[in-house]
């Protein structure tokens, strides 16, 4: 995994994402999901270019069903941006980098 994307779990989601002072984007994924495998290098690329503006995290929904259920993730990959503890933006599916960045343009500038 890249140095700019860290893993979060049911156990540390509160501390690392909800209480984060920076906005935090979470990639909800699982190893058996083809589109997730495609999306993850895109996330890493965006993270390497924009890690000064927000945190980039990934959560394995298989190992962390509680958080996935809490935010009603029913499709993966789902990306949720949290700001001041609240989900403020949500989008679904693998996409090219340009579209991914466009989804986050309010925050990435």
């Amino acid at each position: 995994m890249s140095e700019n994307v860290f893993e979060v779990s049911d156990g540390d989601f509160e501390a690392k994402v909800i209480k984060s002072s920076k906005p935090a984007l979470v990639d909800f994924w699982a190893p058996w999901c083809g589109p997730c495998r495609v999306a993850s290098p895109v996330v890493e690329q965006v993270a390497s270019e924009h890690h000064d503006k927000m945190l980039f995290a990934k959560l394995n929904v298989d190992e962390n069903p509680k958080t996935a259920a809490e935010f009603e993730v029913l499709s993966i990959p789902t990306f949720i941006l949290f700001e001041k503890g609240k989900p403020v933006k949500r989008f679904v599916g693998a996409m090219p980098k340009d579209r991914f960045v466009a989804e986050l343009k309010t925050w990435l500038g």
Partner: protein
Amino acid sequence: MTNHDLLIIGGGPAGLAAGLYAARARLSVLLIEKEMVGGQMATTELIENYPGFSEGSSGVELAEKMREQAERFGLRIELDEVMSVDFTRPEMAVTLGDGERTGRAAIIATGRRPQLLGVPGEIELRGRGVSYCATCDGPFFRDKRIVVVGGGNSAIEEALYLSRFASEVVVVHRRDKLRADRVLQERSFNNKKMRFVWDSVVTSIEGDGKVEALAVRNVKTGKTASIATDGVFVYVGNLPNTEVFKDEIELDERGYVIVDPELATSARGVFAAGDVRVGPAKQVATAVGDGALAVISAERYLENV
């Protein structure tokens, strides 16, 4: 900037087979994929009819193997979206998000994408119970109710897969019989978790924050009904990914690329392979055959220009 011998647009089985053949033939070749290497194949849970895999293979695994094989011969893959093309210049140009790529010949292997139902609630509830990928999202519906819309091979294959997780799978189909292969029909009629709502179309998907119900109308009687459900998986057909080529090459009335027996399109030096071209078979096996043939035709073209 390098001018390639060959540009391949699309990284499904047709594009990957073309990439393998072209790289192995020592052409300078670039494959451009906008979303997911493996294409629709990579979202298929189990592929049982691709020869050489006696126990079947998952679509993702097959995609990875095809990619590795092509890359072993030096295929380069760029993940980016084609915004526009110009096939009228001698060096045909493809404009991506981050600039232009040129090639002396091109293969279009952009495949198809699932068609949407086009009903109220579908877009709003996508990712909140509305899905187009059973492999990705099936496990979220353990012990829940699912509706599958459609009656073709994809619909029934995925309904069977989903029945492993769901408490109930209701298939809503607009006709009174399935279009799917016999073997799939038999399996689905014998599956205790599956039931069928015939002659019916979906008119809306309802739910507050997530899918709760589906409104359907019987096309013969006009009667409407509501089906309570937690998930809706849509498999009502496909659309060819050819919007970007429509001013450059001839398409049929449904948008598929018209080709000759050597897979040449109406534009000089441009070939088409796989699901995106006209033709009745939309299979991994036929796409792979197309990829190989398109490269052989492209090589012949390159030798003669």
